[in-house]
């Protein structure tokens, strides 16, 4: 497995950038590693087939992964063992992402998708309140089920339980809902505010959810009662008229002993200035353990996190147009041990099951701009989200 000690650390290498003609909100590798799916700022899911031109190097040892366990992006336990004795990587990209037909049928934006941990099913949530399940293989798979009114409007976050039995959703309608993976509503809870994030604890019977004001609740959904609360109010600010929502993600680590809360500590609304922030709480006591800030006001949000079995987190940030970072962080350290700033506005990160590669959805350069910027053909161009595929050296 990669030795990421300071003395021997070799930075990840970008293998290739794969263009996409739309902006993307989230991307995830399938547990089998053969597909990449991404939710677009339109009602589609973009898909790629992951084509290996060479066999990947061996996966990290499972024992080394024991100290971090992120459920929303935790393919490692289901990952197939790569072949031993792989050849060194050639200069040309050893992996290609081959576009597949889009999955349609959603509205607004697709900001959330999760793969079932064992079955070949993808769950998708849109900003108009639709939740659906669909096979992700094949050219034009038909949905297994869909609920067009799973929420009244924007579904903020979607999570799947580790055992694959339940889904959790939360939305702008203030509701947190638990579903079976067959689409049947199990229970629901109404929060006092817009709910921005939800995730399952590793044992699968508790969820954590967080609202606009930074109230994080550990909730027993079988008993329908709160277990513990965590104060993440640093992620909220009333700026003039605007309730600035900085909270974006929740993730359990350390086998469920710690809870990560990520997003932006807002300094002001409108332009939205604020520093990317990550808090780590002790789940047993509710007390904060760590408190990171990754930059200054222009740097914005921690928008996504992936846990590498090597014992570190891969974080991405997005701030004012052009500002984006990919960072490697060990939970016990104050600073990231690797920071990559060459990408613009990184919106999501997903780790391939082989733990050797990860993909980041970022933005085209110069995405901002007042005034009339037209193409040579006189068209008004939209921005796009290229997918950057990285390899972590052995």
């Amino acid at each position, binding site marked *: 497995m990669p030795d990421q000690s300071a003395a021997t650390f070799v930075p990840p290498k970008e293998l290739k950038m794969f263009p996409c003609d*739309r*902006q993307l909100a989230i991307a995830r590798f399938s547990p089998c590693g053969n597909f990449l799916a991404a939710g677009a*700022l*339109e*009602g589609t899911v973009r898909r790629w087939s992951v084509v290996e031109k060479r066999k990947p190097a061996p996966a990290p040892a499972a024992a080394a992964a024991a100290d971090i366990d992120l459920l929303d992006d935790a393919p490692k336990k289901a990952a197939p063992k790569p072949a031993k004795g792989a050849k060194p990587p050639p200069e040309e990209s050893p992996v290609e992402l081959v576009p597949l037909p889009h999955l349609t049928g959603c*509205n*607004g*934006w697709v*900001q959330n998708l999760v793969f079932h941990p064992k079955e070949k099913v993808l769950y998708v949530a849109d*900003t*108009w309140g639709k939740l659906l399940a669909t096979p992700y293989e094949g050219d034009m798979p038909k949905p297994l089920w869909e609920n067009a009114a799973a929420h009244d*409007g*924007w579904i903020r976050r979607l999570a799947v339980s580790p055992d694959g039995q339940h889904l959790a959703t939360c939305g*702008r309608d203030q509701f947190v809902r638990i579903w079976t993976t067959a689409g049947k509503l199990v229970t629901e809870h109404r929060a006092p505010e*817009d709910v921005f994030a939800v995730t399952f604890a590793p044992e699968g019977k508790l969820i954590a959810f967080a609202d606009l004001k930074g109230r994080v609740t550990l909730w027993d959904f079988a008993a329908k009662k709160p277990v513990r609360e965590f104060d993440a109010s640093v992620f909220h600010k009333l*700026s*003039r*008229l*605007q*309730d*600035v*929502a900085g909270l974006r993600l929740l993730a359990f680590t350390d086998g469920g002993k710690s809870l990560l809360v990520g997003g932006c500590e807002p300094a002001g*609304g*409108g*332009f*939205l*200035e604020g520093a990317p922030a990550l808090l780590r709480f002790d789940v047993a006591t509710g007390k904060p353990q760590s408190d990171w800030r990754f930059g200054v006001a222009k740097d*914005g949000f921690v928008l996504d996190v992936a846990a590498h079995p090597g014992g570190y987190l891969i974080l991405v940030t*997005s*701030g*004012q*147009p*052009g*500002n*984006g970072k990919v960072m490697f962080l060990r939970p016990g350290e104050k600073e990231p041990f690797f920071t990559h700033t060459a990408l*613009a*506005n990184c919106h999501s990160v997903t780790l391939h099951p082989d733990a050797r590669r990860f993909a980041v959805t970022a*933005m*085209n350069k110069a*995405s*901002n*701009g*007042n*005034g*009339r910027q037209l193409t040579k053909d006189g068209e*008004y*161009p*939209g*921005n796009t989200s290229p997918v950057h595929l990285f390899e972590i050296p052995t």
Partner: protein
Amino acid sequence: MNPLCKPWEHTTSRRQFLGASAGALAFGALGGLVSPQAAEALRKKEKQVLFVWLDGGMSQLESWDPKPNTEFGGPFRTIKTTVPGTHFSELMPQSAKQAHRLCIVRNLCTKDNAHSSGVARIQRGDPKNRGVAYPYFGSAIAKLMGPTASKLPPYVWVKPGSGGFKTEDAGFLGPKYGSLAFGDGKPPEDLLRPAALTADEDDERNELREMLNQRYAAQRRPAFTEASSYVFDTARELMKRAEIFDTSKMAAKELDRYGRTEIGQHMLIARNMLEAGVRFVKVNSYGWDTHGDNFNAHASLVPKFDRAFAAIVEDLAVSGLLEQTLVIAMSEFGRTPRINGHVGRDHWPEAWSIAMAGCGLKAGAVVGATNDKGTFVKDAGHDIGAVFHTWFNALGIDSKKVEYNNNSQPLPLAHDDMAPIKEALA
């Protein structure tokens, strides 16, 4: 800075104003609202204006001109309004219920994409350059229509932040036509007579003030001293009606209906001012420059505006005041269809919307359109000059015939080459 006055004159003016405020009259017996009889009298002939300014630029796509399920349409749904076939963003459920009273222009196409110049350019109507600073619309109305019979200040500005007398709005009209600003919705400090001061003592102070004023005026140009007296006299009328800006005594239901937010409470004060007879009330809301996280920002901002705006439109309609009140809600520009890397929208004067209601306008009208993606207007669109002509005509002022007289220099009220938007006028 207004060219007619110097900084030290502002200092004196402010001291004079505050001194006068300290000697204000006791609360009048009229209360915050005019009586039904008085309101009826006002209704017969007095036209008024409510001007809501959303500073920074509200997104047309998240408000009046949504384009759902398009490349730049954003995450939100649309909702039906009371006008068949017209939809607003789902963030505006209350305004949707008032759509039959509104007049929406969806094809504004203006020239300035910068805040620093755009705010003034829009509020002055962007006329042809004749080497003078044109007045903001509020100052223009204060000049052209003056105070109502209520004798209250003709141009009042309810805004977050600081208050005072803002002469820069008036342009070449002179400081007399500036705005009296109520910072954070509150009257200027020391406006009300201190409890420790008796009425007799107050009268004595006023006599002293008058004497000092006359001495001061003898050494100044009339334009400025007239402005000082004018502001003082009109402000005194407002002082008599302290209940207008005291929301603490308003019913909880009213406060809730407008929203217990900055804009909600300011809009409620604006309603009271209009009911009391203020000619022109401007309400500002700041923080709409959503270059970052535009959609969560609008999810927070728009419903607060929507609630307050719909409530005041409904109240004015119910009281009958909407028939004589021109209501305007706008920004300096719209926001880009393109979504930037910070998930924000930038400045977009090319194709945006304005909402209006009330006197002289066609209720329930939707004027103009943008293309399917919302990127550009479908036809030539309307610049702000045409909008100014429309406003003047809605108020009964023929903007093609009436002119300003700037020291014998005739100046048109609005851009010479533009005309009212006929489809918007009743």
